[in-house]
Structure formats: C-alpha cells, structure tokens
C-alpha cells in the first residue's frame, strides 16, 4: 500500500485529535427539564462517566465519527493498492534526455537526475505482475529495454542513460509507445518524465483508455542562450570572414551579458549585449585569421556572466578552414576576358603554370570521364550536342536542355531588372550591361530568370536532369571596345559569383560545417582512406564505418555539442587527413527552460504536471470515501434512531 498524497496521513493525528478534543469541550447541550436529577446522578456515578477514557470507550458516535473522518483522510491521501489488478500493468516510461534536461535546480541537481529518480521510484513500486519498458527520447527515440518485469534490467537501463544536447520531440516517442501498447493485452499506462518542453504535438494522439501521466521535473528560471551561429567566409574579393551569433533572453528582465569569441582557445573579440526580456539580439564579429591549407581554426562563442541554470546553450562552436579550390574547365575558342578573369580568381584552381585549364570546343567530349573532376565547365559560345551531369556556365549559347530554346538573335538590348536574391547578382550592377547583340532564349516555367532584358532572359539559371547551367544570353566578345561591360568591375564579380554558386558555395563559403545536435554531419572521404576515427567533444575516439559505395562519410546521432574530429587513415594506419566539424544546440525552443504545466495530445484533456508518478496500483480513494460515507450514515442513523451502544 502506498499513498500519492501522504501529507493527509501525517495530518491525521492532529485532525482526529481535534475531533476528540471537541468532545471534551463544552457542547451546546439541549436543555431538558426533568422531575428530579438524583436518579440520574446515581446512574452517572455507576457508569463513572466522568472518566474521559470511560466516556470515550462507551461513545459509539465518537468512534463512528472518528472512523468517518479517518476514511475521509485516507481518501485524501489517495492510497494505491499494492498490485495493479489481477492482470498487472504495462508501464511505458518515456525519459526525456534532451538538452533542456541538463538544466539544474537550486539544489544543483539536473532535471535529468530528478527524472531518473522518479523513474526509479516507479520501477521500485512495480509488483511482480507488472511490466515496464524504458524509452529515452530527445529528437530521436531509443528503446532501452523490452517490456520486462525485471527490476534489475530496468534499473540498469535507467542508470545507463545520459542526457544529450539534442532538441526535444516527443511525438516520435508517443508513436513508438502506441505501437508497443497495441501489442499488449494488459492495462497500459504511459509516463512521461520531462520538463514538458517537448516540441510540437500537432496530430499526435493516444488511445483514450491509456492513462497519460506527465511527471514534471525542473524549476522555473530565466535563461540566456546562444540560439543561432553562422560564419560567412569572404569570397576573397576584399570581404572578410564574419562570425555571427544570436543570444536569446527567456527571462522577464533585460539582461546584459558579454559574448566572447575565441579562436583556437584564445580570446579574439568580445561584445557586450543587452538582451530584452523574451527577445533575441545578434552580434557580428570580424574574424581576421590567416587560413592555411589543411589547418582548421576552432571558433568558440561563449556567454560571459550569464550564470543561468542551463549552461548548455552558453557556448557554441564553428570551424574555419581554407576552402578547397574550385576546379574550372574553360571550353572556348579563345576569350581573353574569361581567361583573365578566371586566372585572377584566387579560388579557382590553376595549373602549375598559373593558367586555368582550357579546352577547344572541338576537343570537348561529353563522355570524357575527366569532366567529373571539374566543379564548373565554362562553355563559351559553344553548344555541345549533349552534356553529362555537372555545372555549366554558358556565354552566348544555350545548353542542350529541352526547355531552353534559342529563338534567334536580337540587337541593341539592355537589362530591365534582375533578381537581387540570387547569389550571382551579389554586388553586381547590371545597369551598365549594354549588349549590341544577344541570343533570345525562351525558358520553361521551371527555369529561373536571374536577369531580365528587353528581349528576354539575359541570365538564366537552368536545371535539367542532374545538370545545372547558368546561361548568359550575351557574347562577351561582342561588346564594343568602348564601354564594354567586360571592363566594368561588375564583370569579374559576376564571374566569381557564378563559379562559386555553381560549385555549391552560393558565393560565399559556409563556414566550418555547422551541424545541429541530433543531426548528421556529412564529410568528404579523401582518396585512399581505409578507416576513420571519430572523436566526440568529450569522448574517446571510436571508429566509424566507411561506405565503399559512397565517397561521403555520414556521422549521425550527434549527442553532444562541441567540436568533433574525424581522422582518416589509410590501410597502413597513416594519417591521411583530419577534418573537423562543430555541432551546436542553437534551438530557441530548447533554450526556453520554463517547465510546461501540462502535455496535451489530440483528442484528450491535457495531462497536468505532477511532481511524482503514481504507482502502478489502482487508486483506492473511492473505497475509502465510500467507507467514510457509510460511517457517516450509520452515525446519523444511530443518532436519530436512538440505537445506543
């Protein structure tokens, strides 16, 4: 027998004692005149009713009242039967292991530790007929045990659990629980040990006959956290590398905090931010570091002086490394402008002689496998009959895409407008682009017009069956000497943007392989790599399997925020290359650590937060209340029917 609310039992002696005390107090007695009281005196003397013990012993009404009050107190204490019925109970324990569970309370214990304690109590209270299963969830679901009645196994599973830095999504866990519940014939129940920050539950339902108990852990508290990180690496055209971070304040008061940026462990810059209550403030840093090939730099953002109960989001990391050169193949019969501009681009790979590889149009073979080694192929006034999958930059000719048609040539063309959101238009002024002649293309609806001219698309972003082409309707060699756009500063910028966009960098290189916790990092596997070792931020190196079919290494299940290191080795165990990537929480919802008051699933009333899990047994308060009612009725009947002890 256990009690969900035993405080009433602790108060029982005082309450019952008060009732007895009332009997000793002078009652407002009904006055009755009798002929003489001396016979009554004799009767009283005989019974010695003046003795309190005797008086109590003989007073059935008092005993009944005590019994009724006792029953009521018992009902309020919510007793549970020792067993959950004849068939037993199947309990599914969903343990939240997300990042917010690492928030600690005033006593220094984390929410996760509190949740484990509560879950252990539930396990301890299981009867022999009951079974339970432990499921951990964050943004994924991990089933740690089978449905078992072995308390040792369940305790072992609970003790093996560790909190992660992942965001929370309860919905997949509930779906998994429903699947498990559909396979059991016993009385089920679902217990969620969490702080209630469980993500969206839209469309998530649970059978109505399955009791849902939300065992809430955690205290309310304000939190300052880094909720966004980004690093933009300059294109090498005068742009510097910028690091950005956003700080969120979930408290009710404005907070001032220092945001530090360290590079390889050394403080590089710091800013003081005042974050309004419930608001987000971003800070940008200019990062001036010299990047060397093969050496990555670790950027670390940290909040100085946040002193909140949730330290996980007080740090964030990013990796800076020198980008790989872009391999460009120029297919042209001779174009000084293109050749010069590409040769001057520091991101473009050059031959040892310092030139961009050039191929004559007549030597172009679509089935040449070496074409795959180039990130971008520039087709100057040349339309091959077919193109293999790849990225192409076309000038004065259309690619052989079915929905890009060449309608002929137009003269005296100007630019009307351009799509400023497209990466190739970044820092480019097309107003000076005056074309004596241009090809008139008709593009399909799926193709994106980047620059629109008086006679149709001037620049077209076309895609077709694994091929992508930036199609320029103008011929660079057709510009007059006087006022040619090729002499305008916009031209090399446009060319650099186009090459980077086609190479997959969008004009700027996304800094340091940023991954969210719980996500999957994808790394290019160097040639000759036979094995890879992954070193988590706070763990030991462990081997990860390399897929022979794919040249990419995927690292899923990033539990911990920080910098991960992947060491690629050849068959002889020699280091080929070491790659870094950073995983961060950066989740505004997860940084809101205010515990929720309830969990609401579709089609059922909200499950209110409770501080302790109910036992698996059935509640007996109704029986206790009925007993109390019965005692009250008997007492009333005796009082009114003159039935005495």
């Amino acid at each position: 027998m256990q009690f969900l609310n035993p405080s009433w039992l602790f108060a029982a002696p005082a309450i019952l004692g008060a009732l007895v005390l009332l009997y000793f107090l002078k009652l407002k007695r009904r006055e009755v005149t009798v002929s003489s009281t001396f016979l009554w005196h004799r009767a009283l003397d005989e019974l010695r009713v003046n003795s309190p013990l005797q008086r109590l012993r003989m007073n059935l009404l008092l005993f009944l009242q005590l019994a009724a009050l006792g029953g009521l107190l018992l009902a309020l204490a919510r007793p549970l039967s020792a067993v959950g019925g004849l068939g037993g109970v199947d309990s599914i324990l969903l343990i939240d292991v997300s990042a917010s569970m690492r928030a600690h309370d005033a006593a220094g214990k984390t929410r996760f530790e509190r949740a484990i304690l509560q879950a252990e109590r539930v396990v301890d209270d299981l009867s022999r007929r009951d079974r339970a299963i432990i499921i951990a969830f964050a943004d994924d679901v991990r089933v740690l045990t089978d449905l078992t009645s072995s308390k040792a196994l369940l305790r072992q599973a609970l003790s093996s659990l560790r909190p992660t830095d992942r965001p929370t999504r309860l919905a997949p866990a509930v779906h998994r629980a429903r699947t498990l519940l559909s396979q059991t014939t016993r009385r089920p129940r679902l217990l969620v040990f969490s702080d209630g920050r469980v993500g969206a539950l839209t469309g998530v339902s649970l059978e109505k006959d399955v009791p849902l108990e939300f065992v809430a852990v955690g205290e309310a508290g304000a939190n300052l956290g880094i909720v966004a990180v980004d690093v933009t690496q300059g294109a090498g055209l005068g742009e510097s590398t910028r690091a950005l971070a956003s700080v969120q304040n979930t408290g009710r008061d404005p907070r001032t905090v220092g945001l530090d940026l360290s590079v390889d462990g050394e403080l590089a810059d710091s800013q003081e931010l005042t974050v309004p209550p419930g608001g987000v403030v971003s800070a940008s840093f200019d990062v001036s570091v010299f990047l060397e090939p093969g050496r990555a730099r670790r950027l670390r953002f940290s909040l100085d002086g946040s002193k909140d109960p949730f330290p996980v989001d007080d740090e964030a990391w990013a990796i800076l490394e020198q980008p790989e050169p872009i391999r460009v193949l120029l297919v042209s019969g001779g174009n000084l402008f293109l050749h010069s501009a590409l040769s001057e681009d520091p991101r473009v790979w050059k031959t040892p002689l310092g030139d961009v590889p050039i191929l004559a149009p007549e030597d172009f073979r679509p089935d040449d496998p070496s074409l795959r080694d180039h990130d971008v192929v520039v087709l100057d006034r040349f339309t091959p009959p077919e193109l293999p999958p790849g990225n192409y930059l076309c000038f004065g000719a259309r690619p052989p895409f079915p929905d890009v048609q060449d309608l002929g040539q137009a003269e005296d063309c100007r630019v009307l407008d351009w799509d400023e959101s497209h990466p190739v238009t970044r820092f480019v002024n097309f107003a000076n682009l005056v074309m004596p002649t241009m090809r008139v293309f008709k593009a399909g609806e799926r193709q994106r017009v980047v620059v629109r001219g008086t006679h149709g698309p001037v620049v077209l972003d076309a895609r077709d069956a694994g091929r992508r082409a930036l199609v320029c309707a103008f011929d660079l060699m057709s510009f007059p000497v006087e006022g040619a756009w090729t002499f305008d500063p916009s031209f090399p910028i446009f060319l650099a943007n186009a090459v980077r966009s086609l190479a997959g960098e969008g004009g700027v290189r996304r800094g340091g392989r940023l991954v969210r916790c719980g996500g999957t990092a994808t790394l290019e596997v160097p040639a000759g790599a036979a094995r890879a070792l992954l070193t988590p931020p706070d763990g030991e190196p462990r081997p990860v399997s390399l897929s022979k079919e794919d040249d990419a290494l995927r690292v899923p299940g990033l539990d911990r925020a920080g910098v991960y290191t992947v060491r690629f080795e050849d068959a002889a165990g020699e280091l080929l290359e070491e790659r870094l990537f950073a995983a961060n929480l950066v989740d505004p919802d997860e940084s809101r650590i205010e515990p929720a008051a309830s969990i609401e699933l579709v089609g059922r009333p909200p499950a209110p937060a409770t501080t302790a899990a109910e036992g698996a047994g059935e509640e007996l308060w109704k029986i206790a209340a009925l007993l109390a009612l019965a005692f009250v009725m008997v007492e009333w009947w005796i009082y009114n029917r003159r039935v005495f002890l």
Partner: protein
Amino acid sequence: MSDAARQIDQAGTLDEEAGPLLDQAFIAKIGKLDLTTRRLLQGRQKGEKRSKKRGQSVEFADHRQYAPGDDLRFLDWSIYARLDRLMVKLFLEEEDLYVYLLLDASASMDYGRPNKFRYAQRVVAALGVIGLTKMNRVGVGAFSSELNRVFRPERGRRHLRKLLRFLEETPSDGRTDLAAACRRFALEHPRRGLVVLVSDFLDRGGYEEAIRYFVARRMDVFCLHVLSPQELDPPFAGDLKLIDAEDGEETEITVSRPLLAAYRRNLDAYIDGLRTFCHKRGARYLTVSTALPFERLVLDQLRQLRLVR
C-alpha cells in the same frame, strides 16, 4: 429531536388536561365504593363505617396475619394453639373513619404526560369523594417543602364541592420535603386513621422518616407512588443538560444505552426499596404509571389492594 423528547421538553403542563377533576358519572360510579382499613381505628362518633375498634362491636369480621405493632389483645390464641400461627381478629364496628389524604404538590409532580400532579389530584379527589360519601372524616394535606395547605377533616357529601375546589386550587411548586410535611401533618392530626400518601417520593432527603411518623402513630398507611412514563422509560438521546424541576440543578449527560440501563436499574432499586420499607412496616404500597387510566386505578387496582371495596 425525537417527538418524545420534544414532548418532554415542554415538561408537561396542566393546560392540556384542564377540565373537572371528576365528572359526575365517575362520582356516581364510585359512590358505591367505600374505603377500608386493616387496623382498628377510632372514630369520634358512630357512623356508617364498621369500625374495628374493640369493645364497640361484637361482630367478628375476619382474621388477618399478625403484623408488628398490632394490639396483642386481639390475637386469636385459639388459632395460635391449633395452627401455631399468630392471627389477629378483626371486628366490625360501625364508626366513622378518619381518612387523611396527603397530596405531593412539589414541582417534581408537575411533570410527564399524563401529568403526575393532575393524576394525583384526581386520585385524591376520588378517594375524598368516596370517603365523604361514606360519612368518613376526610382531611387533605398538600405539601411540598412543608405542609402548604390543609383541608380540615370533614364528614358528609356536603363537603364534596369544597374538597374539589381545595384540590383544584392547590398549585404544584417548590421542593419536596416529605419528612417535614408528614411530621407536621401527623402532629396536627393526632387521631388514627387511614393515611393515603400520594407522591412521586422523589425526595433527596428520603421517604423513610416521613412514613415512620404515620406508622409510629399506628395509622393505616397506603403509599401510592405516582410516576410518569417518561420517568419509567426516558425517551432521551444525544447530549443533554438535565435541569431539576425543583432546585434547578443541572446535570450534563450523554445518553447511551448503558446510561439508560443504569438509570432504570436505579429506578427499580428505588421502587423496590420503597416497597420493601412499606411492607416491613405494615404499610401498603402501589406504584402506578400515569399511563394507566385513572378510572382503572380506582376501580381495579385500589380494589385489589383493598383500599376501596
């Protein structure tokens, strides 16, 4: 509150039983009755009563068992010789009989349903009517803590109305002091006769001394113990404050079955004690509940006890 308890709360008043003490039909019915005594009593003049006074009559009437205090001169020695039993010869003598009717008019009598005092008044009235009708000298004393009112012994039917008015005008009030009242009455009425003491005998000072005054004067004593049904079986429940009707003393009780049982045991013991005391002293005794119809008391019970015939 139960109905019975509610009735007792009102503690019985005479209003509900207002009306003549005796109606004419009942007076006519009891006119044929006569009071009897077991002792030789002395009247002042010849009358209709057959006196048991020795020397005044030679007509033998009956024998009866010898009782302490009987005149040894009337022992029937021949019976003693034959049967070895002491028997007293009773002689008939026509002489007037002194009948003393003592009415308890204390506050404790004004209680119960039917009301004890009213019941006692009617008993005294009936006995008085019988006595006056049969040319006995009938005197009445009403007492509480002392002898409050006295109806001097009179003879003849012409005093009927006066007697009834006397009784009607007698209030019930004050504490009971049986001993003082009886002592006073006995001193004021020295002539022997039949004494009928109608009371609830609820006197903290006891009843023994009072009865002894009359027994010592060789009166023929008849104690009529009047109790109400509510005294015999209290209809109480719950927590009560009992208030004594005479002295206002308050007693708090929580009614329970053991308490009621103890009360009844005490009441039975009290009645038994009184009965035994009377019998030991040659006095007759009868407990009557006011639930018993008054007519049945007079015509049946008192007849069986040979107070009337």
